[in-house]
């Protein structure tokens, strides 16, 4: 399936992806209105090991532990194989957080789980982080 | 108004040719009939003929056809060439006075051969001597213009419709094995006789229909090689290119055609290795002699004729054979007029030369 891959050698640590992600998932059409004076909690996070930076978001595993641990059915795979979240089902038990080896699922301040859904759940249709990465460090492709 | 040669003068045209493969000579009458059919491809501002095999008795001498447009010119000219040439004979070219042809200059022909010391001086042979003389006269002697300089051939041209020009020069009284004809449609009216076609140099003559887009690239190349383009016409530069390729570089007419209307790289890349190397070589080495844009030409040369269309075939050129006779013309009608039934008939393909030679080589 088409997934997000990260080429860390090209990551500039500019953090644009985080803001584009926040915008993409804001449900607001204008990027300024979406981000202005807002604390962002994006599904992609730029991390660093002290030497190099890289963006981390859900890997959409073939056999996702988060789904096998989810007691509420909030996490499931769609037909493409992407791992999606139905936050209306989530009870916020945090089992997914407990098992995700990438630390890519989180419980938001609303108390339910959230994660990257490849912008399938918003109006972008393809991951905005990849489209907007200035240096090809985040790509969305078939492998 | 600028005269021919002072500006570039695009022209549409009619061309036609009749050739006998055995070298048998026939009257110039039929070529007049043929070109006459295409009257509306001309506009009365230029017509002419190249006739091969017409001077059998003086076939080893160079026949200079010369226009004198001012009085002093003839004296200057004769003084000049008598310095370098043995003059066998000279005469006015006989003409028939007709109302359609007016303002004629003095028109004479000279049968000449370079003096030995001139040949020795030039070193590269009598042709080269004539080559130099033609350019010297046409650029340096005011009012004199050599418009034909081959052996056993002659060019006859004037301002007017070609059929009138033919009658004016009494072509019906000449016999040759090859006649080519040209009717001109220049896009303005300089009305200078020298500007009419065919254009010739030594044994070469070219009639041409089209307007080439590579003109200045070709011209500047030719000038580098010592040709002076005084007329700024396509026909002139094509003639020089052919002279350069065949006489100076020793290419065959077919090879020359491959240079002038080179095959596309897409085709070359599909050729056999040997063919590819050859074609690539010719395109690479003679890139400046590639001619682009529309043209159909009929090239007369000593002992043969070549028809050639541009690589995209942007002009039409019909060819027919009947017995030993070969007919070529811009329009099929011009052939049917003089040869109602033929053995075979076809149209020249883009970039594919059609060459006929007199059986048993030169006449």
């Amino acid at each position, binding site marked *: 399936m088409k997934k997000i891959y990260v080429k860390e050698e090209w990551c500039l640590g500019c953090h644009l992806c985080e803001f584009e992600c926040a915008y993409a998932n804001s449900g607001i059409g204008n990027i300024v209105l979406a981000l202005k004076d807002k604390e962002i909690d994006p599904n992609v996070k730029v991390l660093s090991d002290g030497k190099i930076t890289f963006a981390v978001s859900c890997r959409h595993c073939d056999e996702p532990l988060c789904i096998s641990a989810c007691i509420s059915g909030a996490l499931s795979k769609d037909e493409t194989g992407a791992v999606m979240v139905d936050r209306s*089902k989530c009870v*916020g038990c945090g089992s997914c957080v*407990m098992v995700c080896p990438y630390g890519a699922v989180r419980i938001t301040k609303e108390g339910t789980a959230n994660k990257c859904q490849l912008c399938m759940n918003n109006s972008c249709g393809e991951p905005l982080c990849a489209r907007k990465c200035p240096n090809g460090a985040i790509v969305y492709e078939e492998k | 108004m600028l005269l021919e040669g002072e500006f570039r003068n695009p022209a549409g045209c009619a061309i036609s040719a009749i050739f006998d493969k055995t070298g048998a000579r026939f009257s110039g009458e039929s070529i007049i009939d043929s070109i006459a059919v295409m009257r509306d491809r001309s506009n009365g501002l230029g017509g002419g003929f190249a006739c091969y095999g017409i001077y059998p008795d003086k076939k080893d001498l160079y026949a200079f056809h010369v226009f004198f447009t001012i009085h002093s010119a003839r004296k200057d000219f004769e003084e000049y060439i008598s310095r370098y040439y043995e003059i066998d004979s000279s005469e006015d070219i006989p003409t028939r006075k007709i109302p359609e042809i007016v303002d004629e200059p003095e028109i004479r022909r000279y049968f000449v051969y370079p003096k030995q010391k001139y040949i020795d001086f030039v070193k590269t042979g009598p042709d080269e001597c004539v080559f130099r003389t033609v350019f010297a006269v046409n650029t340096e002697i005011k009012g004199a213009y050599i418009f034909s300089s081959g052996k056993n051939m002659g060019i006859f041209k004037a301002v007017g419709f070609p059929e009138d020009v033919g009658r004016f020069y009494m072509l019906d009284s000449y016999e040759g094995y090859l006649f080519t004809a040209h009717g001109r449609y220049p896009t303005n009216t300089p009305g200078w006789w020298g500007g009419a076609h065919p254009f010739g140099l030594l044994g070469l003559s070219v009639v041409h229909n089209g307007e080439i887009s590579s003109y200045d690239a070709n011209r500047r190349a030719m000038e580098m090689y010592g040709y002076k383009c005084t007329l700024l016409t396509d026909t002139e530069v094509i003639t020089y290119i052919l002279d350069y390729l065949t006489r100076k570089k020793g290419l065959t007419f077919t090879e020359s055609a491959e240079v002038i209307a080179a095959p596309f790289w897409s085709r070359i890349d599909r050729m056999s290795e040997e063919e590819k190397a050859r074609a690539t070589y010719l395109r690479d080495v003679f890139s400046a002699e590639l001619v682009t844009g529309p043209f159909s030409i009929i090239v007369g040369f000593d002992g043969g004729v070549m028809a050639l269309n541009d690589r995209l075939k942007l002009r039409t050129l019909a060819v027919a054979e009947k017995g030993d006779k070969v007919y070529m013309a811009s329009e099929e009608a011009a052939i049917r007029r003089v040869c109602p039934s033929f053995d075979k008939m076809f149209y020249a393909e883009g970039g594919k030369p059609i060459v006929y030679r007199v059986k048993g080589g030169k006449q």
Partner: protein
Amino acid sequence: MKKYVLIGGSIATEGAIEGILSADKNADITVLCGEKRPLYSRPLISYALEKKTTDEKMYFHGEDYYEKKGVKAVYAVAEKIDPAEKVIIAEGKEYPYDELLVATGSKPFVPPIKGLESVGKKHTFYTMDDMLELRADLEKGGKVLIVGAGLIGMKCAEGVKEYTDDIVIADMAPRPLPAATTPEAGAIVQERLSSIIDFRLNAALDHFDGNKAVFGSGEEVTFDILVLALGVRPQVGLLKEIGAEVNRGIIVNEKMQTNLPHIYAAGDVVESYEAVGESKRLLQLFPSAYLGGKTAGKNMAGEDSRFLTDIPMNATNLFGVRITSAGLFVGEKTEVTVGEDYRALYTEGGVIKGFILIGDSARAGILTDFIRKKRPIGDLCAKELLAGRDLSVYPAEERRAALGGKYEI
């Protein structure tokens, strides 16, 4: 077409169905379910009671899950297995199988306590029916006594809190969540919740007298509604009687096979391989049930699949206090407190054995992965791992490969 019969209708069964279908597209699967309901998520009962979710949503893959998967669901209690004939008898009918999964789960443990019969409204809290019955009583109001401060008891209390603040939780253990937490963590949970819940700890129940519970200490607690949450016992009967190897639960290998041919078992009913202690163990966890079932399913369908990464783990949220733990609390302990939060990491020979986090659990899965993979922490400092962690703590090659899509961590 292979016949698969799955006894039991919960998470292990779901896992098995997914496992079988992943390997055998046209499998003929029959589920025998004594609990007469379509597949639902048991851990949701407290949330349903608490009204954090609805009864409908408890059918977490939809009430039509079996239909969607093309599975025959028979709501009947399996009474007998005939391994020779390869048939199961349930409520008089025979169900032949090629491969059998026993996922009978467990039952709430109700010890024989004097006077229990005299109690009016008494409940256990394990199935959806339990929840519905309890809710019916709660809606009529009254004081609630929950015996047992384990996870079930505590989650139940959270639900009950929706109906009454008058809750007592009693346990003979000295602290809540005795099994799922460490003494330190348990103490913190107790301290955090004591304002909300009336704990009676170190309290051994002596007997009941109508609506009164009397403890060994002589202390008495009156109540209107009693919930017994004293743990559960695997339902091993079906297999025990045909000679399967059974300890507290049914013993299975890494392929979830019992010692009987063509018979597998998974879920709360089994003692399976546990990766930290590297021994057979009764885990009774949701992910273990699902993954165990899936492993069983794949093997039943002829693949070779082994479940080698099963470890104890638990994530829950009690009255806003988040408790996340994994592995075993053995070896060298490192503790940190970050603001309100308490965190402890247990390591042995440079390998993480277990952890427990009270409060923020962000990216806990990374610690879990260290445990599951027995990945040495190298020069990473335990304190820092507790303070905060992200993908950068993995070896660079592993991280690069994972992000580059060459493999999954």
